[in-house]
């Protein structure tokens, strides 16, 4: 069995699965139950000066029968007295000395920072996480994402904290910025020991059309909140990999956050450079118990790949994430439909007709009918293979891909409801050798899609 333990800035954690700073890590009782369930660490609900919360606080977005594909919240930092939190943090660390306890902090003045750092270090926090990410409420008071969006301020506060702290400092970044590299670089310059991302995305969850009030609703008003959950994972993966590749920040351990619900999500974040991962929405939806599957699934996956420890997985996919100009223009794939498992729903056909390149044909039509349907190229032969399944009336045929027109976009495979029925098959390329856009630019055969300046800069760099 692979070793799931990690070393995060010198702090050991039994596994990379941490609770994110959020409602699941609100109290000592919760965190201890989470550790009992198997979580390796917890980032306590952010501590700071006293606030008052509102009701309601959460909004969900469903897709078809999937509940809470996305979640947003307008909750602020902890609304419990600091002394209570500190007492419980002390208790947790005393009872679970091998688990990772991270104090999430958000205050304003240097004095406030100095004071709270001392307090949380005194109760045994292993790490500090500075919340420069919260995009609602707190940012209106000059904290949270208001800091994360101002690289100079972020760098300055980071420097204060690093100077005063005895334990390593993680900077939590907001995705609500034009370029995630800027705050990441500022954190690195300020001396941060690690980076965590992403915090939630600024959002309005929806509109109650009866009341004409956005959601979540507080009396007759609403406000923008922070969006998270499975739907944000692709955004988080992108930003994590940006920070992992950035020249200034790439040496810093990353705690990946954003839509992680299972071991596979976690493995993807780790493969793109994360050392630990933090989870909130999935726990809010299904409870602490999900970690059992995360531990088992990641362990089995590592075993299946012959990896002895989770650190071997870290960054494995990062090298194959490149800019568009490095992609092989000669790579050529075509859709292939498996007649054995096709159920004849024609969703691939309609997606290709209206959303792609009109290359999937329904057999049995005349040339005129095909043209009327919207095809531009009609293959000489469209074999009529009947859908071989019970319950489908005669005269229904497996759709046919016209290789001449298929540009290998994946759309048909994405909409097909039967897994494995549409596959993308590699074909010989049209150029005959690997060639990228950047190759062409370098050879002076094409312009860089960015600008002439960047082309010149690239050449100079090489």
């Amino acid at each position: 069995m692979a070793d799931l333990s990690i070393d995060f800035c010198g702090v050991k954690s039994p596994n990379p699965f941490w609770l994110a700073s959020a409602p699941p890590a609100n109290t000592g009782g919760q965190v201890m139950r989470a550790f009992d369930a198997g979580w390796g660490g917890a980032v306590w609900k952010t501590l700071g000066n006293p606030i008052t919360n509102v009701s309601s606080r959460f909004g969900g977005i469903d897709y078809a029968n999937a509940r809470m594909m996305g979640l947003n919240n307008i909750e602020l930092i902890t609304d419990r007295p600091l002394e209570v939190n500190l007492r419980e943090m002390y208790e947790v660390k005393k009872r679970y000395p091998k688990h990772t306890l991270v104090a999430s902090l958000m205050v304003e003045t240097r004095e406030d920072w100095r004071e709270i750092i001392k307090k949380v270090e005194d109760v045994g926090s292993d790490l500090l996480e500075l919340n420069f990410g919260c995009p609602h409420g707190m940012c209106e008071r000059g904290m949270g994402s208001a800091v994360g969006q101002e690289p100079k301020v972020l760098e300055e506060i980071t420097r204060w904290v690093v100077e005063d702290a005895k334990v390593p400092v993680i900077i939590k970044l907001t995705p609500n910025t034009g370029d995630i590299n800027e705050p990441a670089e500022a954190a690195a310059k300020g001396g941060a020991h690690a980076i965590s991302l992403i915090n939630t995305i600024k959002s309005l969850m929806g509109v109650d059309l009866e009341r004409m009030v956005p959601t979540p609703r507080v009396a007759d008003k609403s406000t923008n909140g922070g969006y998270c959950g499975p739907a944000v994972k692709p955004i988080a993966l992108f930003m994590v990999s940006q920070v992992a590749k950035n020249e200034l920040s790439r040496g810093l351990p990353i705690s990946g956050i954003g839509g992680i619900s299972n071991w596979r999500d976690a493995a993807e974040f780790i493969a793109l450079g994360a050392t630990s991962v933090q989870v909130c929405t999935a726990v809010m939806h299904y409870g602490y118990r999900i970690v059992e599957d995360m531990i088992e699934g990641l362990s089995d996956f590592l075993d299946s790949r012959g990896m002895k420890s989770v650190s071997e997985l870290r960054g494995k996919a990062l090298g194959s994430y490149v800019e568009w100009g490095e992609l092989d223009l000669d790579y050529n794939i075509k859709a292939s439909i498996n007649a054995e498992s096709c159920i004849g729903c024609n969703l691939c056909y309609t997606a290709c007709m209206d959303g792609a390149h009109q290359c999937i044909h329904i057999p049995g039509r005349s040339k005129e009918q095909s043209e009327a349907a919207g095809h531009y190229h009609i293959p000489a032969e469209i074999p009529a293979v009947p859908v071989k399944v019970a319950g489908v009336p005669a005269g229904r045929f497996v759709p046919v891909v016209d290789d001449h027109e298929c540009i290998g976009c994946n759309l048909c495979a994405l909409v097909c409801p039967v897994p494995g029925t549409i596959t993308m098959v590699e074909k010989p390329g049209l150029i005959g050798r690997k060639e990228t856009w950047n190759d062409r630019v370098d050879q002076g055969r094409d312009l860089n899609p960015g600008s002439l300046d960047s082309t010149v800069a690239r050449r100079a760099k090489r």
Partner: protein
Amino acid sequence: MPPSFVLPVLPDGRLEQRIGESKPAYNEAEAVTEANRCLYCADAPCIRACPTGIDIPTFIRKIATGNVKGAARTILAENLLGYSCARVCPVEVLCAGACVYNAWERQPIAIGRLQRYATETTLDNGGMKALYASSLKASTGKKVAMVGAGPASIAAAGLLAMEGHKVVIFERKQVAGGLNSLGIAPYKLKANDAFKEIAWVFDLGDIELRTGIEVVGGDFTIEGKITAKSLLSEFDAVFLGLGLGPDSALGAKGEDGPGVHGAVELIERIKSDAGLSLAGVSHALVIGGGNTAIDIAHELALLGVQEVSMVYRRSSEQLSAYAHEIEYGMKHGVRVRTERVLTEIVRDASGAITHGKLAHAKDGKAVAGTEELVPCQLVAMAIGQSRATDVAKAFEGVELDGKGRVVVDAATHRTGNAKVWSGGDCVNGGKEVVNAAQEAKLAVRDMLRALAG
């Protein structure tokens, strides 16, 4: 304007009231969850399998998005009787049977229940009139007569009324609706729900119902009867929705007398006659292998008859009843005895039935010397219905085929008389409500062209 269709009040204590629904109504959450399972196929096989061609994936998607009224519009655009069809259609062999999920060994979409949800939710709040308020046409002054008030006539009447034509329906019985009101198994649709749909249709325009009036041949109109000739002269067009005639008799010894019922007649009494009692009936025989046979057998079993046997003279492979109906009936205790023939109904001195004499059958015929006595107190004959040929013949130019069915042009449903159209069981020999609705639709399309003249 007062409501043009006064809902009939059936007496309390009918046996059908004791029978629950086999497919209860969905609530909103159930409907949306089921609707979200639909793949929204392109050129969907369910549409092709629907005799009326309802755009099923579109109406289901509308349920999923919360556009329930739009879903009802999509359904009713192809089938004005979309509500009752949702409840009585054999979806297992039509739309749901064609669902691509069957191929994938997943439960097909519950299309009937979703259709009921869309139509019932919408029409219970304002009926069809509210739904079509902006598109109903002003009066044209043209008049159309319907003969019979079954599903075909009701559908045709609604479609004509929407276009501003006046419709008068002549019904021999006291109650409108035909088999939809009085012949559908109560676990699918009860009489009052069928009446509800008729009321929605009548609200669409100027539709008048004249019950207790028989259409006859000849030249003289007397009380309770009206002649075909007078309909042809007084109306701009006539639609024959005659249905079928009375249950056929078997001709077995002892058949005449109490305790022997025609299946259609018995179902009608279960649905409408509070005086019908099954007290003392512990064993019943149902003769026949079709859908009417399994329906009455199933109803008797649900009403507490301990042993109900459906007796069919040929093999189980030749049963014409739907397999899903037989399976469902058997779940409630119906026994199916194939390759058996009822040769005699045995009565005691008082005339009450004590036994049926069943013989083994070969090629549908009794084999002598194989008879056995089976206890029973009630026998229902479900071996077909006669044709309503006399009424059809009263209309000059209307022809019947060798099986007594009204002959029409398949595309227009016009008969040999240019002013007479026909549809439903009297044309197709006895099919589903959905077939009647489709035939009425085809007939009305042609009638509208003719009336526009």
